[in-house]
């Protein structure tokens, strides 16, 4: 039966390739149905599996870990395109298995959607699970965040492999207590950076100790609810970090971890957290130091994550923001930059975005500095316009252009520095519109 399923899957992959279509998800969906919802159970994987999950940073961390092993000369299989549900992982394995369902590689490195961790790894044996963070993200798709954490916590109760957790996120660190017998729980941690605050700056969750209900105390907040916390009553949060980022200087940018100084390309605090997780994974697997250096210092992102464009001679930075935390970080980067600038905000409410757009009200727009004009676009262009207006920004300086090409034209009309924020399904269309503008009017992509 399993062989038949694999045969069917392989035929679909082949057909899609012949039709020059991307086989990222569809074969998995078909197998999900014919295997009675156990889409990855027919594969035989003997090599170690490393999974990366969390709300923000999965793609970056997965790609970096994949590079650690690749540059060490290992054969790896990874879902670079970010197809991270069970069906996406099934499609990936279908492309790499033989007719008996055997997957041959040295390591599988899999970005895995938060809600799919228990589903996938009840069927495949996991060696290492890396959990980056939990933020409000697409709440209406996943149900409330607590339900999501409970799901992963349930999985961790019987998990004995390496569990590398963000020790500065109470929502994540609590998973370390799920299985008291697991001796392989490890935490990564970061010392305060220059913009760390004593009080919470943005909308946050996880204010209470999940074990005793006491209000958590923070030595400092890095951003949102991420920071050095502990419970004054039961001691939750008092752990010894496995790896710590310190001497963080985002101007250069540099940071030190385990006595070694890294110079990443991206200058955000959340990149420091991601790279600390990568360094932690490298430590678990004894990756050579020069390889870790080269991966962390060369890693940069496309796909709308702090991606640069020149619209004619106007320097433009595009960043994806799936949730308030991402958007607030972009606004901070924008504010910390000198001179006047203009912002284009593209907001969609497609199914993959979560149909609800109220998260934009958790973005702190009142910090706007030297923002001379705002253009809004996307299927909810007016919602974001109203939100920015009610933060006290003069509506005379807000232009609504639901059509993306028109919005980019509007943005590029005036000289000066430009920023673009786009949510999940808006990123690719926004990149396309920026490129379209460049093809008509000159400029360049990164």
């Amino acid at each position, binding site marked *: 039966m399993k062989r038949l399923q694999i045969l069917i899957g392989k035929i679909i992959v082949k057909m899609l390739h012949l039709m020059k279509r991307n086989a990222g998800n569809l074969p998995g969906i078909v197998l999900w149905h014919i295997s009675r919802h156990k889409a990855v159970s027919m594969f035989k994987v003997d090599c170690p599996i490393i999974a990366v999950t969390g709300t923000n940073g999965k793609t970056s961390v997965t790609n970096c870990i994949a590079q650690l092993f690749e540059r060490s000369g290992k054969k790896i299989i990874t879902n670079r395109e970010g197809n991270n549900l069970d069906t996406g992982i099934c499609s990936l394995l279908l492309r790499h298995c033989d007719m008996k369902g055997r997957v041959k590689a040295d390591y599988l490195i899999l970005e895995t959607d938060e809600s799919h961790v228990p589903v996938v790894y009840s069927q495949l044996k996991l060696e290492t699970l890396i959990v980056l963070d939990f933020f409000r993200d697409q*709440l*209406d798709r996943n*149900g*409330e*965040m*607590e*339900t999501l954490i409970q799901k992963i916590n349930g999985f961790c109760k019987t998990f004995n492999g390496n569990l590398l957790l963000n020790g500065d996120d109470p929502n994540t660190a609590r998973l370390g207590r799920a299985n008291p017998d697991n001796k392989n729980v490890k935490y990564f941690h970061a010392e305060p950076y220059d913009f760390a605050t004593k009080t919470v700056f943005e*909308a946050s969750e996880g*204010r*209470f100790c999940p074990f005793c*209900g006491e209000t958590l105390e923070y030595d400092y907040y890095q951003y949102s609810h991420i920071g050095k916390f502990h419970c004054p009553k039961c001691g939750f949060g008092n752990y010894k970090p496995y790896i710590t980022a310190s001497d963080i200087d985002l101007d250069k940018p540099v940071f030190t971890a385990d006595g070694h100084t890294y110079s990443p390309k991206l200058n955000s605090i959340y990149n420091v957290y991601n790279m600390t997780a990568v360094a932690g994974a490298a430590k678990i697997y004894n990756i050579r130091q020069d390889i870790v250096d080269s991966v962390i210092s060369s890693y940069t992102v496309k796909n709308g994550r702090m991606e640069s464009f020149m619209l004619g001679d106007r320097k433009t930075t595009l960043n994806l923001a799936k949730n308030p935390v991402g958007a607030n970080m972009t606004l901070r980067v924008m504010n910390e930059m000198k001179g006047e600038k203009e912002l284009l905000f593209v907001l969609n409410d497609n199914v993959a975005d979560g*149909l*609800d*757009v*109220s*998260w*934009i*009200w*958790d973005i702190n727009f009142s910090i706007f500095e030297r923002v001379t004009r705002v253009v809004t676009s996307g299927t909810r262009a*007016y*919602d974001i*316009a*109203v*939100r920015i*207006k*009610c*933060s*006290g920004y003069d*509506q005379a300086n*807000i232009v*609504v252009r*639901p059509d993306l090409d028109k919005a980019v034209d509007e943005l590029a009309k005036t000289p000066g520095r430009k920023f673009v924020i786009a949510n999940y399904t808006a990123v690719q269309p926004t990149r396309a519109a920026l490129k379209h503008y460049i093809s008509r009017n000159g400029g360049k992509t990164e």
Partner: protein
Amino acid sequence: MSTIKILHMYADMLDLYGDSGNMEVFSYRCKMRGIECIIDKYSIDSPMPDFSAYDLIYIGGGADLEQQHISADLLKCKEGIAKAYKGGTFLFLICGGYQLMGKYYRDADGNDIPGLGLFDYYTVAPNSRRKRCIGNIVIKTDITGSPVNVVGFENHGGQTQGVKNPFGKVLYGNGNCSKSENEGYCEKNVIATYLHGPCLSKNPEITDYMIEYCLSRNSGEKVTLTPLDDKLEKECRTVMLQRLLKK
């Protein structure tokens, strides 16, 4: 300059789906008209406030866990809130705030969280956490004296029953129960609703109704507000109405 005093309760815990944005919209619309808007916050273990000193009391929504956290504290405020409400203080209640003013909230495990019992309705959560009323919603309300289509976003498990005077008729979405005709609860000085979004962001008439109510009550005569330029808000609502109500 006239002043409106608001007590925003449990802002640090009951703030799902941008509910705190309602206070931003409210104070924005006051500020544009030169009305002073003072928003005090109350949370667990704050000193007991004089509820009747406020023109409006606002409570947002939260997850089950947060609602359990605050329910005992809220009961301590019962007398004060009831007195303020009877004295004419406006109650603006979203989702969890709405539910907790009723008789009780029975959660998915069958545990009853007692409400303040200000109103006769009660709420029962379905046994399965998956059965939720989630999505865009449009209701028609007459609270302002002329019909207004209000657009928002609902996400609630709880099914609220025994509502005598609903806030509006459901034109799209679920309302008080799955696929129900009515949404929320209202009196002249109460708006209780499941609408997030935040509720006031696209519905300026509702905000202005509450501002007018507060000012009229303070001055003893009917106050009419100067209109604002609501081009963006109205266009925002029109886009959603066209999308949701087209057959």
